[in-house]
């Protein structure tokens, strides 16, 4: 104690005291604030909505309007449901970086907890599809063959036969479905993000969606076999033709050059 009091006039003493005081205040707040929130647990849902509303006001309101009613820069979010929010924000598409033909997937900037809060707020604006639970998109009980049939009927026209994506009009495109979280695929089918049409449960049942997701995992998973060898991106005649023209014809030209090249001559130096 004597040691401590001896140093009380040290030039850094004030700084140390200040830091200690700050740490104490912060620690006390951390210890008590969640407790008080837990006490106010008459509705965790309304709390999430409140938090979501704050996040919405900061990140979304400039385009979608202060109450989600939509502006000229962004569509109305009333009735789009939690699934739409989870898809758009969870894949990084929202918040959009800039207007354009299509908002692409990018780095996700909200945590899953924040996304859930935003989703809760948007869901409170009007009834819409909820975020699906895992058993809806998990592989249990899915029929991969049926999924392939459904995928070719409903999805392949834009997303390619094995979900590699494809071009649409005026700079829009159907993104590749390789490596996309099954939950997001489910939500996209349900809500129809951007220009993709929706496939609600009334026309494409929950079991149908599960089958489609299982099919995509079977053709695009890490262990997917390609018995024919190099799949060249699975894009069909464009990449295959390019490969044949460049490497096939290139090899033929190389051989022709070799056949016709002059042989080493014996010459007096």
């Amino acid at each position, binding site marked *: 104690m004597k040691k401590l009091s001896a140093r009380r006039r040290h030039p850094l003493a004030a700084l140390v005291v200040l830091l200690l005081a700050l740490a104490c205040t912060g620690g006390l707040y951390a210890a008590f604030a969640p407790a008080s929130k837990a006490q106010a647990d008459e509705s965790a849902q309304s709390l999430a909505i409140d938090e979501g509303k704050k996040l919405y006001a900061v990140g979304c309101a400039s385009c979608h309007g202060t109450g989600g009613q939509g502006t000229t820069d962004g569509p109305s979010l009333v009735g789009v449901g939690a699934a739409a929010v989870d898809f758009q924000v969870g894949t990084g598409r929202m918040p959009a970086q800039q207007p354009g033909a299509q908002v692409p997937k990018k780095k996700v900037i909200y945590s899953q907890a924040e996304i859930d809060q935003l989703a809760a707020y948007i869901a409170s604006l009007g009834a819409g599809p909820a975020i699906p639970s895992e058993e809806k998109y998990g592989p249990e009980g899915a029929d991969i063959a049926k999924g392939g049939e*459904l995928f070719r*009927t*409903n999805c392949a*026209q*834009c997303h390619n036969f094995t979900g590699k994506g*494809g071009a*649409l*009009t005026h700079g*829009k495109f*159907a993104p590749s479905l390789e490596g996309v979280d099954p939950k997001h695929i489910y939500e996209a089918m349900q809500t*129809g993000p*951007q*220009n*993709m*049409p*929706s*496939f*609600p449960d*009334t*026309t*494409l*049942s929950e079991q*149908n969606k599960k089958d489609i997701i299982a099919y995509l995992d079977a053709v695009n998973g890490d*262990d*997917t*076999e*390609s*018995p*024919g*060898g*190099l*799949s060249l991106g699975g894009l069909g005649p464009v990449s295959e033709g390019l490969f044949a023209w460049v490497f096939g014809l290139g090899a033929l030209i190389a*051989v022709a050059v*070799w*056949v016709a090249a002059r*042989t*080493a*001559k*014996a*010459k*007096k*130096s």
Partner: protein
Amino acid sequence: MSSQDIPEEKLPAEQDRPHGAAARPADETNPFADPGLPPHEPRVQDVDERAAKRSERTVALLFTLSMLATIGFIASFVAIPVDKSVYIFPLGHISALNFALGMTLGVALFAIGAGAVHWARTLMSDEEVADERHPIEASPEVRAKVHADFKQGAKESVIGRRKLIRNTMLGALTLVPLSGVVLLRDLGPLPGTKLRHTLWSKGKLLVNMNTNEPLRPSDVAVGSLTFAMPEGLEEHDEDFQNEIAKAALMIIRLEPDSIKDKRELEWSHEGIVAYSKICTHVGCPISLYEQQTHHALCPCHQSTFDLADGARVIFGPAGHALPQLRIGVNDEGYLEALGDFEEPVGPAYWERG
């Protein structure tokens, strides 16, 4: 091996004069000098037996490699099971049998070719030989002989005297090709009015192709896309493909205010519109539907149709708007067709008008 390694006495004397055809300087009849063939330069293998031996061994090695690869092909065919899969960078998980067969057969064929080319390049003679052209026409004597032979043959065949043989032979030869002509009948019969009609008719329910259940208006949400076929058509029917190729339908729902075309609005039900899925250009299935712009794009030639404006063609080579199916709701609340398409679906044809 470079030329420096060759012993001095083995090198040939410098050749100054061209070999083969003689050089000819320019003169009055021929303004361009004919330089003749360039001097022949012997190859390393022509003067050095060691190099020649080495080439021989290389060629033999390539041919032996081909033999081994063929044996490898047969061995892989026998030994590797059809469903065995291996991981090979950068090909990924591929069939072991396919890979082994392709690799060994490729090496077997390539080694034969490479051996033959190496043989020709290093050991076969590479002296250029000029070969003069000769007139193609035969000599007058030969021609006279052929004419005489032909005349004699014709006379001996008595074709000029025995008219009956000549005439029946001509008849037989004329009739034989008719067999081929008659077979062309199998290209027909002409389609008649088949191209103008589909399976749709008044009262047929719109069946969802995903669930095989008839659709209700409440099933079809704004912004959704659904494919439908006429009630009664089963996937296992013998003529399923023929019928669905004409009857395939895409069903979308628009806000009624956003429908610009008066007839489209009239033929729709609460904003639900049903269009033929078959492109009017060359008949590709067209269903790349963008729900915000209401455009449908054909993947084959990029024809684009505005489904909010009577499926008008707004881009691409298609010549007609997509035919719309008039729909309504029956007493039980299911969507039904109110008739067939009013115009032929799919690509235009000569008699379509």
